[in-house]
């Protein structure tokens, strides 16, 4: 099978950097990638399951990687979340694609 993994960097809530390979052919989003590598304790991320309804997967995008545009529900959720910055996104709304090679994100604090 063709290798469809991409290399991305995730900085966890303790500030530790993780260089990981994320599959792009398993319909996974960034929140699920974080969970699959157990980079945040279960129950503290992806609480709503990925419906843009809890903001537990909020992260700060540190690279200038092109990401899917923000939809209304993500924007609405972020407007009610805490610790929001200009580069905040919800991991569950970012589907992993080959174009995201080199993505660097930092997980926002638990709220």
């Amino acid at each position, binding site marked *: 099978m063709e290798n469809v993994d991409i290399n991305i960097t995730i900085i966890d809530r303790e500030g530790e950097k993780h260089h990981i390979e994320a599959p792009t052919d398993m319909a996974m989003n960034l929140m699920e990638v974080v969970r699959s590598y157990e980079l945040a304790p*279960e129950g503290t991320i992806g609480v709503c399951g990925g419906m843009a309804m809890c903001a537990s997967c909020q992260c700060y995008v540190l690279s200038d990687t092109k990401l899917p545009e923000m939809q209304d529900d993500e924007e609405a959720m972020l*407007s009610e979340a805490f610790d929001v910055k200009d580069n905040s996104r919800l991991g569950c709304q970012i589907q992993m694609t080959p174009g995201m090679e080199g993505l660097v994100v930092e997980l926002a604090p638990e709220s």
Partner: protein
Amino acid sequence: MSHYHQIDIINLVFNFIFMITTDILIIGAGPTGLFTVFEAGLLKLKCHLIDALPQAGGQCSEIYPKKPIYDIPAYPEILAGDLTERLLEQCKQFEPGFTLGERAETIDKQDDGTFIVTTNKGTKHHAPVVAIAGGLGSFEPRKPKIHNITDFEDKGVEYIIKDPEIYRDKKVVIAGGGDSALDWSIFLSDVAAEVTLIHRRTEFRGHLDSVEKVQELKNKGKINLITPAEVVGIVGDHKVKAVVVKQAQHIEKEFELNCDHFIPLFGLSPKLGPIANWGLEIEKNAIKVNNALDYQTNISGIYAIGDVNTYPGKLKLILCGFHEATLMCQSAYQIINPGKRFVLKYTTVSGVDGFDGTRKEAPKAVVKSIE
């Protein structure tokens, strides 16, 4: 006899008369908890459910009632709210009791091995078996990160509106951009002396009716709307006197806004909460159970089923919760009826006898000779 002893005895008698008693006490009225009532009912065991939310259904009714689920066996698609309705209908004949809007706070194992579970409002429940079907925990209000907010809790800061009358003729600041912020702003505009609604965006996520109503009240001067802005501080001495508002439009500026109450309404998020202190083995924010047998925890008589438990290979799926509930009930039967024989029966063969006197059964085959 001292005065205190008399009070103790009165409490004891009071509890004895008024304590809720049941066979299986279920903590959490989500899908797994509701299906437990049905499976227990088939074994003639009665259930009572406690849930911190004011309605049954757990996450399905609180977070995503209008969203479809596609992996419930035999339902190619069902809305989470409809699943809750059907589970309630399925278990209705077994007359479950409910303590809703109260959070299970403490558990005390009695000398005879039974348990007393007390809620945050002091309601006591007595049962030989406790099944924790608490999902991700009880839903708690999400608190904005304002450094001194906890100092003002119940001193002008309320995350949940219990009695709107306390706001009569007061100055109220509400923060949030969802339905509850909109609905309470509308409601309190008739009660409070002044209502200010603060939201980080100009757009609100709520029913169109509510958004339009707030617009109308704003135009009439009955709701003071400050957007895009957020509350970043609280000023007061033992009591809220003002909030610090940071306005984002054009140039950032901060100002104080006098008020008697600050009500942040940012929704609810589940927290494992007091259950974490019940002496149960916790791993990954979940309760460790024995999945080779019956989903019992490290405390005999306490089970954990559904999303709240963990074991090697655990999957947090509603359908897995149903399976766990079914096995758990068989084991609970043995605790409640030690040594009493029982074999699994099929509902198609035996029918279902409700505690309410109803009986469901498969129609009998017609036997008639052909001449």
